[in-house]
């Protein structure tokens, strides 16, 4: 935030300042890649949820999907400078064994996020859990910092009244099993020959290592409702680069236009990337509104694509406004290349129109944060050229070194 404001203030006045800014910009624009593993038993719904979130499938369209063979690798561009390397791992046992043995290092190293999917309908829970324990130990061994998301999937098949109980029960089982997996690794650790020096002082160091691994969240999901968006929004939330900057910028925009709530959506998946809520907006009793908005807008996108006959990944609408008399006003509009913005605000014609203008004025700032290296700097053309030169220069250096 602060360096961006500095950019604004001293746009192009002194060259050394500009260089410093350019360096800061380059930092902000650094492309981030994240390896995301999607695992779980065969038929548990991994590819279905991936298709819904990233390829705009309708829930009922996922019936057409066949079994994933081996690993289905896809690169999902998410915002300008974040690419998700999505490893959709086919869940048949033969593949699973393969991941755990021959491909172990290949699959489990450098993992940013592991998403493990449990099928509530599964008959052989014990076996599922055993596989899970193996996967977790492999993950802890190769990518200790990876975040773990466990999705208890196909919740729609459970009677609504018992859903909560079923979920709680699964959560406790999974947590216990995760602890077991970590314990296994702990025991193995001294024998792990990679770092013989630590192996000497085994008891203390082994205790110190695994505890950090329990960065784990569980979600009850179903492709038939918004729960899927809730889970995926939290998954991507931590991966978004420059999130802090985006959030502070969003907040100052919110204060400036008197909004009650601002949500920033990714363009294709309509997952909530960032949000800001005023104090009045916090009183909103709908705690699930963020995933609900994703769900609403996404299904609306489908309706549009059906109506216009355009492909479902194409952009479907550019502007939506809604004024509900003296209660509230809101608009959803295409914001930057990769985002849509939703603004909910107090009623009032003048307020609404000025907010729209202000959001349009804020667009270049966010475009800069969102766009990849091409993105023009917000304040001046000159700065943009300096920044562009810097990044291309550093890009040129990289192969040499």
């Amino acid at each position, binding site marked *: 935030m602060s360096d961006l404001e500095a950019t604004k203030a001293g746009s192009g006045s002194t060259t050394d300042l500009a260089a410093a800014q350019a360096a800061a910009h380059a930092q902000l624009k650094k492309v981030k890649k994240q390896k995301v593993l999607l695992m779980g038993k065969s038929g548990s719904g991994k590819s279905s949820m991936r298709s819904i979130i990233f390829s705009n499938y309708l829930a009922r369209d996922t019936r057409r999907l066949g079994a994933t063979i081996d690993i289905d690798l896809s690169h999902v561009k998410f915002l300008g400078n974040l690419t998700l390397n999505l490893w959709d791992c086919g869940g048949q046992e033969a593949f699973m064994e393969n991941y755990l043995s021959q491909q172990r290092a290949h699959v489990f190293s450098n993992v940013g996020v592991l998403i493990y999917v449990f099928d509530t309908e599964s008959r052989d829970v014990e076996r599922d859990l055993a596989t899970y324990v193996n996967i977790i130990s492999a993950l802890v061994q190769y990518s200790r910092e990876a975040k773990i998301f466990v999705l208890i999937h196909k919740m729609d098949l459970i009677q609504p009244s018992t859903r909560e109980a079923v979920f709680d029960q699964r959560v406790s089982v999974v947590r216990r099993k995760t602890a077991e997996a970590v314990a296994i690794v702990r025991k193995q650790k001294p024998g792990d020959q990679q770092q013989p020096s630590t192996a000497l002082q085994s008891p203390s160091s082994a205790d110190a290592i695994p505890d950090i691994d329990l960065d784990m969240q569980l979600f009850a999901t179903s492709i*038939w409702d918004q729960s899927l968006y809730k889970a995926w929004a939290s998954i991507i939330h931590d991966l978004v680069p420059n999130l802090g900057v985006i959030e502070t910028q969003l907040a100052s925009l919110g204060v400036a236009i008197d909004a*009650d709530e601002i949500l920033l959506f990714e363009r294709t998946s309509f997952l909530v990337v960032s949000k800001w809520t005023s104090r*009045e907006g916090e009183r*909103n009793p709908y705690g699930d509104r963020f995933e609900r908005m994703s769900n609403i807008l996404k299904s609306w996108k489908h309706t549009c694509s059906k109506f216009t006959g355009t492909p479902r990944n194409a952009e479907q609408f550019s*502007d939506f406004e809604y*004024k509900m*008399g003296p209660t509230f006003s809101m608009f959803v509009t295409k914001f930057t290349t990769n985002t849509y913005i939703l603004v909910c605000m107090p009623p*009032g014609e003048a307020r609404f129109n000025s907010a729209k203008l202000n959001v349009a004025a804020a667009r270049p700032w966010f475009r800069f944060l969102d766009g990849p290296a091409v993105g023009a700097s917000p304040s001046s053309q000159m700065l943009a050229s300096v920044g562009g030169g810097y990044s291309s220069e550093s890009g040129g250096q990289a192969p040499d070194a």
Partner: protein
Amino acid sequence: MENRQLLQKKDVGSAPDLVAQQTKGTPRLLLMGQRRSGKSSISSVVFHKLPPSETLFLESTARVQKDSLSSFMDVQVWDFPGQIELFDNPNITFDIDAIFGEIGALIWVIDAQDDYLESVARLNNTILNIQRSYPHINIEVFIHKVDGLSDDYKLDIQRDITIRIQDELSDQGIENAPVNFHLTSIYNHSIFEAFSKVIQKLIPRLGQLEAMLTNLCRTCRFEKAYLFDVNTKIYIATDSTPEDMASYEICSDYVDVVIDFTEVYGSWPRTQQWRDRLEQEPWQQPMEDQVACEWAESGMVLSDAQRPIMLREVDRFLALVAIMKEGSYEKMPQINMNVDVVVKGLTEFFDITKPKEAKVLSAPPTGPGGGKAARAGGQLLRS
């Protein structure tokens, strides 16, 4: 769904009792058909907003289930258990007159994925029984559960059923009975469309409404305009251009989007401080004067050919939704004025056509400011 089950438990009386305590004067829709043909699912999805996937958990209906649709026009929906045999029943004699006396339409649900011969035979029997005494009852046959069937197969079934019924009726000497056929499924918009058609037949002076909408379309160069009942997403009138399922779907989904936004952001009260702050300094006006239109209004521009969609609330129950031609978004202020006039006309129309008693109650005609009082906090909300 739970409400429904509760209701079922409460209605301990037998069917004839229920018939006795009917309300007079409101048009009634009867849902009949074989067991498990999907009658309860239909009424739950259309009138109770049950997600179609959850109809799996609905239990079999044991008694007559009455729903009332309170909207611009009150309609009662009676869901008859499939196993009740109304005619020639040795155990109970039903008061046929009480059941069919004030009925607006009889909806007969046929499961297209099942063997429908028995259902068709029962339908024929029912038609023969009521045709003599109540020749004006519209008989609407819903050929149901057609999702997943191929288009050709759907039409084949429809043709087959139509022929079977027409043949039987003409054998019995009944020609031109008012029987209509609809292909429906709860998993898409077809069930709402079918209900729209059924309800439209019950609206007095529908032609007037349609003329108003046609006129609006011509003046504002709209492609298509619908007057929606917001709660059920049934459309009660549209302009005279040819029916088009795709336009209906997008308009209906648009209503959904607006309802959802309303629920999330408009259904809870704001604090007084919030209001005070917004009414002081730079604005210096009460909130009501800051807004241009006291009813909900909304617009969306589709990326494809810049074709906009607009929505305007008419009253607590109805909303006008229209698809505009490309490029007309710039003329929005002008269009809004035209829409305002039409909305005023619609309000007057419903004032006049309302049943007599209701009209006396709402005697003072609502002028431009009068609506404010009647305006409750969360209109456009799902009940």
